């Protein structure tokens, strides 16, 4: 699937109000004005295993 193109020049024109709000947001509080949700660094997932010797199985969770 081809990803949709992002055109900086046309975005600068067509989304000027949003960009102005973002630019103003830099002078205030970026989390509240731009990213809205609190996105934090990591989330753990997948096989939560513990070390095992001799190729013994450990729970998959």
């Amino acid at each position, binding site marked *: *699937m*081809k*990803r*949709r*193109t*992002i*055109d*900086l*020049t*046309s*975005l*600068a024109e067509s*989304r000027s109000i*949003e*960009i102005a709000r*973002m*630019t103003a*947001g*830099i*002078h*205030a*509080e*970026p*989390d509240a004005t*731009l*990213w*809205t*949700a*609190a*996105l*934090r*660094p*990591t*989330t*753990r*997932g*997948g*096989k*939560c*295993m513990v*070390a*095992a010797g001799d*190729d*013994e*199985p*450990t*729970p*998959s*969770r």
Partner: protein
Amino acid sequence: MTIGPHELLWADPDVYHRRREKSALALIAVARALASRPSSAPGAGEFLRLYDWVSTADPDHFTEIWCDPVAYFWVRRAMHFLASCLGEPLGTVEQAYCDEVGATSAAEALALHLEEFKSFAIALAIVSGRDLALERPYAVSLPLAVPGTDLVITGPARATIAGVSNRTALTSAGVRIEQCPVVRVDGARVYLNAARFRVPGIGFPTDWAALPLEFQSRHRDTVGDALRTIRRFQPTTFRHMEEALHTIALRPNDGKPFNISASELPGSFVCTMPSDPFALAGAFIHEFHHNTLFGIEEAGAFFQTSERDEIEGENHYSPWVETLRPLHGILHAVYVFLAVFRFWTAVATEGSCDTGVSEAQLAFAREQIALIPQQLRIGTNQLRRHARFTSFGATIFEALAAEGAEAEASSRTMGASLRTAAMGVTPSGALRPLIQHGKPVTVADLLLDHLTKSDVHHECDAERSSLERALGA
């Protein structure tokens, strides 16, 4: 919300594009903010001239570069450092970033961070074929994953890049340019590139990210098998992966295996190898849906803010990990494990030994079908007990809770029970029944053992009693 929660959670292909487009808008905003205050940081002038050069690029070339997971990381840090220069406190990631690079102020961190924009300009020059001469050489820690490409610049720990000529980076002596493996399945094109995770402040150890590319190459076929397995058993997720999965970083099993996603690197995740390809497919589905939910979160916060820190406060029992988790993490787990449950359900109902699914993989599927709905119930109970959702978050949560109940009913219909045999994964990635003290371990044993060890605040005594009653019945 203009579309229903189910569609938003599982079927909205625009969630990824919206996030990428927003990061491009943020790039314009960063440039405008710096243009209005060029004295905010040393190097702002050179950044603005590079930005002007980047903004005249062919949009297809820019898109190729700006879809790189690191672009989002870069632009978000740039905004936060700029805000911090104007008095806002540093966030968790920004503080960790400063600690890692040795910056003692937001202005110093911003100057170092603006320097990193050169990697995008270099990548664009390579992809577009336009030569680039940097005003000051880019001083870089190697290995460097060139954004939006399969190129990895390796060699000594530090190097400089003066520009690009004829699509070739002009580097200091001793530097090599290598290509990471790329896995292509239908429209999916996935870079296997651990160096992409070498960004400061990401929040987990990345020493493995500097390993030679040979490790990625060694497991390339298994990654392809896993992607084809997803295409076969969960085609909807595969279509989303075609749109949004960019990079997988494989790390070796050093006795502390983990798979991980970072909200700041959309379209990428880390998986530990070696692995059975079906288990790896389940891990890909799991991690990819963290990415999806991070994107959905940008439409609005799920939790009301309180002093209890729902996002990072590791305060609550989770049936999936050994340590206490934030409510945000438990909500993520409920979402991703619904997708994983559906995958294993499809494997169990549509797969057979005659169609290339091994008996061990089918046994693993049966275990997951028995285990996950029980965990989902505990997870949703924990959220219902402790979370204070926003209106948007409540809508999302109720949809997930209803789907969890459906999973439990479906699990029963398929004959899964608490006495289903538990499966394990060996360090070499093989799937085997779990045996303890000479006896097969059951799903109930796993759940009760986990509650005993990890529910240190006895938040889930009711669930434990319910499990014990069910076993006694």
